[in-house]
């Protein structure tokens, strides 16, 4: 197993992003002028409150009592046995159980923290985009908890394949606005949320759900998700007195992966692996493998890798999982790829569906289809590994929301 040292020109974790919101050449603020003051205001509020004891205390208390943190680091015994060598060696596989959070995914870590910020900024109306619906549900949840008006933008196609989550959001009092533009998926929902924000910026806070979008979102969302990696470090220390060897997470926009990676970016012995959705295959037109197939471009306010055609028109992504169905990716992932600190690979819909079944059968844990992509990569990764490296997979969400979709694939009518 090899690890790649950071290149000499790379920024240290503490300096990332720089004051202009850059991760190397990635990131920035490519938004209409109308939003620039709001982004500055958000950044100022974040800098003011991130170390504020009252803010931190409120956040920590809620993460514990409302979200249910810390989430366990679970040794997946039967999954580990599947990849054991005849001589008894083989990777030891652990799952960071973000699926056990309230609302069933890591998304609430960020939604909760941002809503606490929004309250301090005096914003009474919250908007968000959602793909799989997990971020929408998390946002609707925290808005219900604090009695804030909540509008969720969701592509019509995603509303259909994630109807359970649409029901949950509405149940908690959120207005779910269907977005029919484009292919009616996460990209279009995000554009529509940005348009709403441009229009209502003076009263509204936009809770962006991934480490994407204009600065300071990639930084704020990363920092609010970093609790995943911080807990993982402490739990690894407790279980075996050391660091993990490999971290594995799925990447759409990339918030669960960044949340797990961030704490370990400056630990060169820890291998960081992100898994994108290859859809029907990266050599087809139907995939969402931005980092492996994209070129540098600008989408939703940030410079990053992007799926685009020759003219710079954004290409619709495809994945069986609504949460990975995004033609862009968070700018820090593009940076980590370019400085060769993290590795990014992709798995197909079929591989993810198999992994969805496998984890259900072997561990009694039904993962989100997004998460299933990370699980699926074990099939490729494990045979390459010698010894007994410890792998921590971010089990970023639970799969209840996906059972209808999966049933359709496994038992086509």
């Amino acid at each position, binding site marked *: 197993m090899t690890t790649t040292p950071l290149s000499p020109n790379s920024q240290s974790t503490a300096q990332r992003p720089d004051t202009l919101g850059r991760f190397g050449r990635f990131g920035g603020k490519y938004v209409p002028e109308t939003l*620039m003051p709001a982004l500055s205001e958000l950044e100022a509020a974040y800098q003011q409150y991130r170390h504020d004891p009252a803010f931190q205390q409120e956040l920590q208390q809620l993460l514990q009592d409302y979200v249910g943190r810390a989430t366990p680091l679970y040794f997946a015994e039967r999954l580990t046995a599947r990849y054991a060598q005849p001589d008894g060696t083989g990777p030891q596989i652990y799952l960071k159980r973000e699926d056990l959070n309230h609302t069933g995914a890591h998304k609430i870590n960020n939604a909760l923290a941002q809503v606490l910020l929004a309250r301090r900024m005096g914003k009474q109306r919250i908007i968000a985009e959602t793909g799989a619906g997990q971020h929408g549900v998390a946002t609707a949840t925290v808005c219900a908890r604090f009695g804030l008006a909540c509008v969720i933008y969701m592509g019509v196609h995603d509303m259909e394949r994630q109807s359970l989550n649409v029901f949950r959001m509405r149940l908690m009092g959120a207005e779910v606005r269907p977005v029919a533009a*484009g292919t009616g998926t996460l990209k279009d929902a995000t554009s529509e949320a940005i348009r709403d924000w441009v229009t209502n910026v003076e009263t509204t806070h936009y809770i962006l759900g991934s480490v994407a979008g204009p600065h300071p979102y990639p930084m704020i969302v990363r920092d609010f998700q970093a609790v995943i990696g911080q807990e993982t470090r402490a739990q690894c220390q407790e279980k075996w007195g050391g660091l993990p060897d490999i971290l594995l997470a799925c990447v759409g926009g990339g918030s669960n992966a960044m949340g797990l990676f961030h704490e370990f970016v400056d630990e060169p012995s820890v291998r960081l692996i992100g898994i994108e959705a290859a859809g029907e295959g990266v050599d087809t037109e139907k995939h969402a493998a931005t980092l492996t197939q994209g070129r540098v471009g600008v989408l939703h306010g940030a410079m990053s890798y992007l799926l685009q055609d020759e003219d*710079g*028109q954004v290409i619709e992504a495809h994945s069986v999982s609504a949460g990975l169905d995004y033609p862009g990716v968070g700018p820090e992932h593009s940076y980590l790829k370019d400085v060769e600190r993290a590795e990014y690979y992709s798995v197909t819909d079929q591989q993810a569906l198999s992994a969805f079944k496998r984890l259900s059968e072997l561990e009694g844990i039904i993962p989100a289809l997004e998460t299933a992509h990370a699980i699926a990569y074990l099939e490729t990764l494990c045979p390459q590994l010698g010894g007994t490296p410890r792998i921590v997979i971010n089990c970023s969400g639970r799969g209840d929301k996906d059972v209808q979709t999966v049933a359709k694939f496994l038992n086509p009518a």
Partner: protein
Amino acid sequence: MSVISQCFESLQARSQCALIPFITAGDPDLETTAQALRVLNKSGADLIELGVPYSDPLADGPVIQAAATRALQRGTRLEAVLEMVQGISPTLQSPIICFTYYNPIINRGIKPFLQQLAQAGVAGLVVPDLPLEEATDLLLPASDLGIDVTLLVAPTSSSERIATIARQSQGFIYLVSVTGVTGIRSGLEARVQVLLQQLRQVTDKPIGVGFGISQPEHARQVKDWGADAAVVGSAFVKRLADGTPQQGLQAITEFCHSLKTALLP
């Protein structure tokens, strides 16, 4: 002096407020776009903003979004848009301002993109998702080629930002009249007048007001408030798209005349 600056100077000499219609290239097709440029040029347009259709126009409201989607569905390519402009621009009095999002620019490369614009006879460039902080890479190479990059000021811009944007903006300053996306609105916000006064205190450059101007009375109002130009977008795009191309061209001809009449001193 740039083409756009000359245009404003000559208008100001006649105490006129400029009319800047906007249309989306390729909706319904590039041939109609070329004809639309001709008729607008003859019907009172002082400058013309030509929108390059983009897949993710996040500063645009439903009318221009839909026009861009239609144009892209018909296979409208940047190459073909510029070719059409190159063919027609020598015959137009009104300078052409290209309105495009940033991704198609960096996809081509900033310099090659600007060179193509210059070659096509485009006089100015508006990039709605490129705020001041990110515009530096574009401003210098553009002025070398004689293309004005016009920056936008919004109702939410602080007075410091307004002053800096006014200093850096080329050709004119584009004042966004609403917090919001492009589109047809029933009335104008009164704070536009305040913003115009605020801008006037920090700049001698011409000021164009746009986003939400859809009627002759709106145009007249921003002129009376001291604007040097009124930009009208969705209202043109909608008229051009209604019915057959011939009906659309007829409708924008009449509409353009009525706006220009409202702007006359």
